[in-house]
């Protein structure tokens, strides 16, 4: 009975829509890695910051999350710029390990500050409730899922276009390859890095806002999502922007099907299993490329 086409379609659809959110989050993470070689272990907490901003705005000034979305992106952009300027920039020239450790510390700090401020309670922003029902296909489409999925996809593709065709986007790529030479070309590398981190943080913030209308979240939710993002990155190939997009959608699908056919507990572990599998079979990712590709 699980093999009925409506069920398959149902699972595929909700999987893809959830996957779009992973993609948005993973692409930001990937951008920072591609350009600065920094794995930002605090990326999940940046997302949660976005989610809490959305929650605060809804709760205290009664603003709809979709109205707040650009504001949150702007705020997180600024926060990202500051983080880059004060923290990550100081690590240029030190080994990979160092940035891992610093962002790990940052993630712990942010998460626990979140716990202090908001406690470990789960919150959610109950807008866009319910679902559309397509009686012809016997299909329900959850409203928040549809909206969040569409916005995630649009944002991800928009940023992809920016990197590919805009002059500043190209500068980001240049910095990712050869920072010293980029400098000689007149590119203010520090600025570009700040912009990169800013964009990535804004993407995380956007993901957070969308998360807030989809699921319940607490300050501790970030870590779980980060792990999934890594699975996405590894599947798509670290530093590969399109890869992350595809990887995100793929993970969403796989999770939905594993949850549908087996058990949701396994669905949560499947991201990690997928990650390990890809790492072992194709250490360069499914789309196999080690370096920044935009």
């Amino acid at each position, binding site marked *: 009975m699980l093999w009925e086409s409506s*069920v398959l379609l149902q699972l595929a659809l909700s999987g893809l829509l959830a996957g779009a959110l992973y993609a948005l989050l993973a692409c930001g993470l990937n951008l920072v890695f591609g350009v600065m070689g920094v794995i930002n272990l605090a990326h999940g907490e940046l997302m949660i910051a976005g989610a809490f901003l959305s929650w605060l705005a809804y709760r205290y000034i009664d603003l709809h999350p979709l109205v707040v979305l650009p504001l949150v992106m702007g705020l997180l952009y600024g926060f990202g710029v500051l983080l880059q300027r004060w923290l990550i920039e100081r690590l240029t020239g030190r080994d990979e390990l160092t940035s891992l450790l610093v962002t790990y510390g940052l993630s712990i700090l942010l998460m626990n500050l979140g716990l202090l401020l908001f406690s470990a309670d789960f919150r959610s922003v109950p807008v866009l409730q319910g679902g559309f029902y397509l009686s012809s296909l016997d299909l329900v489409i959850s409203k928040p899922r549809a909206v969040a999925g569409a916005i995630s996809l649009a944002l991800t593709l928009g940023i992809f276009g920016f990197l590919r065709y805009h002059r500043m986007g190209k500068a980001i790529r240049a910095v990712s390859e050869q920072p010293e030479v980029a400098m000689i070309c007149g590119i203010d590398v520090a600025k570009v890095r700040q912009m990169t981190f800013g964009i990535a943080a804004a993407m995380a913030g956007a993901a957070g806002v969308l998360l807030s209308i989809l699921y319940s979240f607490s300050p501790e939710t970030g870590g779980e999502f980060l792990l999934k993002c890594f699975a996405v990155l590894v599947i798509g190939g670290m530093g590969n922007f399109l890869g992350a997009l595809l990887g995100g959608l793929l993970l969403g699908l796989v999770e939905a099907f594993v949850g549908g056919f087996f058990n949701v507990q396994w669905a949560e572990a499947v991201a990690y299993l997928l990650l390990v599998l890809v790492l072992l079979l194709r250490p360069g990712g499914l789309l196999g490329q080690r370096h920044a590709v935009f």
Partner: protein
Amino acid sequence: SSKKPILVGASVALTGKYSRTGQEQLNGYRLWVEDVNARGGLLGRPVQLIYYDDESKPLTGAKLYEKLISGDRVDLLLGPYSSGVTLAASTVAEKHQFPMVSTGAASSKIWARGYKNVFGLYTPAESYMNQILFFAKRKGLSRVALIHADTAFPRAVAKGVKALVKQLGMQLVFEEEYSKGSTDFSAMLVKLRLRKPEVLIGGSYLPDSTAFVRQAKEYRFSPKIMAFAVGPGLPDFGENLGADAEGVMGNTQWEASLKLPGAQRFARRYQQRFGHAPGYHAAGGYGAGQVLEAAVKRAGSLDRDALRKALSQLKITTVFGRYAVDAAGKQIGKPGYTIQWIEGKRHIVLPRAHATHQILYPFQPWQNR
């Protein structure tokens, strides 16, 4: 020199996943300490509470009870919050042969290990859903779906449900465990829609039960009864879900509306002191204090053996309800209560004797709301 305070030790979940309920329990403890001291203390000595944050983690809890017993040398022990932390903490108490009054823990497992020093207040988790299942049986329902988180307490709830479903000759059409902290139930809902259960029972805490109900609406999943173990008992459940909470059932250990000695007064004072109405975790905290108080009075000293004896023989009624334990220290005196969200409020609907509202049945399908 006899004015040296009596030290009461406890670990509480101030941070971590149980911080919300842990904080309420702590408030209950604190209110009791204030009251005891206002009454002139215990054995003529003032009472002082020493507590630490166990971060909702069993291991930390165990460490802290070690600290309380060996480091701070407390005289009396109150329990932490949650079955998990209690399982760990009680082992330390047992090691030191130190009697501990435990509230905020309902898994029977705690009392199935042959320990002699843990005395519980909560109605055991295994019987949480009994009234609802009996009610469903009366309504002629038989298809039951059970979902639950993977920690000690929800598992205990699930165990009780499975046993009773079998005993009542009902049919368990779906069962699935999920990790605590899960908030995406879409895949589960797709499956549930196919199985068409009439009764859905969740061994769930607040976040998961809230998320489940929201997504049930998105996926238009509406069984005739929807009930969860912990979530609906908390005010946040209604706050988060608004109108969608309507008709969801749950359990409570206690409601302020119950006719128990001092309960109303406790609820009033609690509201004044902490600015919000007490949930059952708060009342449990206060009640645990009262039990400890009664036991010390009965023992007439702080001697641990005397205390242990007193605690196992004691039968009293606190603001929280009846206290009476079996030989293992497990609670057998106190009934559970079934609540339901009706018009934005929590009402006791079962047992009938305590009901404050007629039960709402069946659960309104989402598309009709």
